[in-house]
């Protein structure tokens, strides 16, 4: 199982949990299984083409998956996936 950190705006979809344990051997599998376990959450992370939305970064441990092999990045026991919206704000 892989520990997946859920960002604040999506926690209502995981019953308020900031971390969930999800099975999967790649980031793509994690996103798919996360979506099955918590309906609607995958659509908040990925667009209609299945690509990660432009304001979200996904990290495996401390590295952005864009600098690994994207959604195909393989995962092993003990890895941690963090879904993190980029900084925003406003007056």
């Amino acid at each position, binding site marked *: 199982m892989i520990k997946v950190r859920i960002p604040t705006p999506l926690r209502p979809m995981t019953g308020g949990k900031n971390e969930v344990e999800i099975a999967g051997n790649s980031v793509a599998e994690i996103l798919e299984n996360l979506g099955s376990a918590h309906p609607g959450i995958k659509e*908040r992370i990925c667009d209609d083409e299945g690509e990660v939305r432009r304001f979200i970064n996904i990290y495996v441990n401390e590295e952005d998956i864009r*600098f690994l092999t994207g959604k195909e990045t393989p995962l092993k026991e003990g890895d941690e996936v963090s879904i993190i919206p980029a900084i*925003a704000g*406003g007056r």
Partner: protein
Amino acid sequence: MFYIPSGLIQDMIAHARELAPHECCGILAGTNQTVAENYRITNILATMSEQELSRFEGAKLSDLQRLSPEERADIAFQMDAREMAMAQRAIRAKDHELLGFYHSHTFSPARPSQTDITIAMEFESYRTKLNLPAPLHLIVSLEHPDTPDIRAYRIMDSQATEVSIQPISAS
């Protein structure tokens, strides 16, 4: 006290003016208490879908939903995540640290809004897990267009505390 080269301060003011009335945003990097470079990051808010706006919460979300996409970027910003990741990679390659974030307030003072504080606290909950230092939040206000105001803050425990910034000549 944070030290920022005068040229970078001028560049952040220029960035704010170029994008006004939209808010601009970017990243500050350097070492210790000294900023060495800024990265301009695209504010993608005006091109975000209605569904994507749910990234914001409460009153700000309601405000954004009432406005046209173009008007939304006048009162808020959302950094492009890919550009942010690229900047973080460049920062590491230079042995610099991510020291903070900046954005502009086109029509309001250089003080963090409730949205700024809420999202800074959201970032704070991830920051230590990603081994990043506590960031400075710098705001460029164009409320008085001829006399831009720049102020910097630490945001901890939902409280913003102003931090002095000292302009330095570029080395």
